[in-house]
């Protein structure tokens, strides 16, 4: 896919989403929660970009900000050639059909007072001039596409299981033939047996409709299954972005290494081989991130420079981006050590 002159469908540049904190008696603006603080990446048409990170690192906020469910603090978002970062919510509405979202909680993402028919039909009501009969037919087609029985169209969401509800949510997202779908932890609230079904459904639909996904998840093995490329977030920033295979084989950033070492290994004999990297301390508050590299307070390979300056997000090898002083040219020795380590790791395999 990427060899055929990859075209970025979504371009995110220096995206910032800060939430103001008001405190004191006069509700004075006393600071910002920097949920997303300068994130840049491209999503190539037809690919799935996995966005991973621990709870509270800003994954979901990033996904929602890209769809402009929030008014972003700064940066630019281009989807399919249209700059949407600065548009008002009103002028954004005609552009909504090209980007959709699948939500985390299938219970909360469906209006309990609406039937399945009217839930899936709502996007059609807003953006098309179809007749009632055409809409009904389209809803049936969508229900077929996501594997729901047509007979359930006049039922209400509470009559469905979690997996079925998620299918309803996916059908609603597909109704307007979007190019780009943000999947905000679509499987986190589901049973393990249902998770596989929903992920496979998403993959099938991607093939069928040529969709591009931003797949937000904290389930690293599921991301490994579905994603083409993986972006790792820590405290509002992307620390590493790379194609799936290399990032799982030899993670560059110390945080990615720690994160991947936490993935449970089903085979006990292999499990013993890998050393778990246990990070010390807690994630710093996004309202008051540390000076320098965000990860410097917990990094096992922390250096003096990490506490002073913020590392740039650089392309170390083709397609592999990382933000870490271990790999920047300004720190020759550290870079050499790290490169050496990578080489050693490769030899070890």
């Amino acid at each position, binding site marked *: 896919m990427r060899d055929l002159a990859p075209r970025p469908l979504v371009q995110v540049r220096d995206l910032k989403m800060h939430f103001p904190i008001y405190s004191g008696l006069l509700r004075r603006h006393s600071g910002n929660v920097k949920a997303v603080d300068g994130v840049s990446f491209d999503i190539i048409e037809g690919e799935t970009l996995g966005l991973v990170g621990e709870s509270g690192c800003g994954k979901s906020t990033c996904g929602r900000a890209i769809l402009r469910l929030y008014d972003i603090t700064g940066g630019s978002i281009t989807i399919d050639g249209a700059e949407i970062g600065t548009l008002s*919510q009103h002028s954004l509405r005609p552009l*909504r059909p090209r980007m*959709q979202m699948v939500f985390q909680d299938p219970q909360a993402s469906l*209006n309990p007072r609406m039937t399945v028919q009217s839930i899936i039909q709502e*996007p059609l009501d807003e953006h098309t001039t179809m007749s009632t009969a055409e809409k009904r037919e389209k809803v049936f087609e969508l229900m077929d596409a996501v594997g729901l029985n*047509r*007979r359930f169209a006049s039922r209400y969401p509470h*009559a469905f299981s979690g997996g079925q509800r998620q299918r309803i949510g996916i059908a609603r997202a597909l109704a307007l033939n979007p190019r780009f779908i943000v999947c905000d932890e679509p499987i986190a609230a589901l049973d393990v047996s249902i998770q596989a079904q929903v992920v496979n459904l998403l993959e099938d639909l991607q093939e069928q409709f040529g969709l591009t996904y931003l797949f937000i998840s904290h389930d690293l093995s599921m991301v490994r299954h579905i994603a083409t490329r993986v972006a790792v977030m820590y405290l509002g920033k992307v620390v590493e972005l790379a194609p799936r295979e290399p990032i799982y084989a030899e993670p560059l950033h110390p945080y990615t290494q720690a994160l991947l070492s936490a993935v449970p290994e089903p085979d006990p004999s292999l499990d013993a081989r890998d050393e778990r990297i246990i990070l010390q301390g807690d994630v710093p508050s996004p309202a008051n991130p540390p000076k320098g590299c965000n990860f410097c307070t917990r990094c096992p390979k922390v250096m003096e420079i990490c506490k002073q300056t913020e590392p740039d997000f650089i392309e170390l090898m083709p397609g592999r981006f990382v933000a870490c002083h271990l790999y920047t040219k300004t720190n020759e020795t550290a870079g050499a050590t790290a490169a050496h380590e990578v080489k050693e790791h490769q030899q070890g395999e």
Partner: protein
Amino acid sequence: MFSNKTTAEDLAGVITAAEVKGRSLWSDAAARFVRNKAAVLGAVVLLAITVFSLFGQYFAVWSNEEIDWSIMGKISQAGAPSFANGHYFGADELGRDLYARTVQGTRISILVGMVGSLVAVVVGTLYGAIAGYFGGRVDNIMMRTVDVLMSIPFMFVLILMLVIFGRSIVMLFIGIGLISWLDMARITRGQTLTIKNKEFVEAAIAVGVSPTMIILRHIVPNLLGIVVVYATLLIPGLIMTESFISFLGLGVQEPMTSLGALIRSGAGQMQFGVIWQLAFPLTFFLVTLFAFTFVGDGLRDALDPKDR
């Protein structure tokens, strides 16, 4: 063996043929309401009282303003409830038929309650939903306005209005309408704050639904449960308010009357041995209030999913 198989196939055919009709939350709530005996009894009594107040005058021998000169001056002996002279509920101190007056008074009282809570439902719900949904400065201005209006001693203002603009039933409706929606606006605003953060509202935004349609299609239908309950429980309060105003001698004008006005005159006369003048209006008043309260409680139990 074969027969079993064919039956199973028939069954499968029957199942797939029929489209499944969904049960909405409303029909679930209706089923729960019907199971609640007190609430159903309340609803039946309420219906009976409404029918009585709407059609009761067709069974009356006397109108509510005619004076029966034959019993005038000897009410305590001749004015007692009797089918013989057509005064089913007896007569008041002027010799007017208490049955006709109770019918008419009940009608006014229920009307006041209904109009007041209708205003509360329409204005209060939309006001609260808009304030809660848009939030920020809009919310601040709208809700501080409500706070200011609430801090005004409304009974005083209402009495003043009735004195200045003259006592009329319209003025009473306006006065009650002006205050009845304030509490409703607060309640719906609070509910809206929790609903607007649900993911289905975000999904609607992501789909490109306009704020107006989000409020009407997603927020208000999810508010209606609590609105219906509160409106039902509001009606007795409004009837009480109207009765109090009428008891003070303001409010409804003669020859029209209301339950409050009837109770007032009945209370003034009971020392003369004409207890029926108090008993009948008071009974209707109490039964109506109880019925509304039972129905309101029943609706709350039926519509509030948390109690299940």
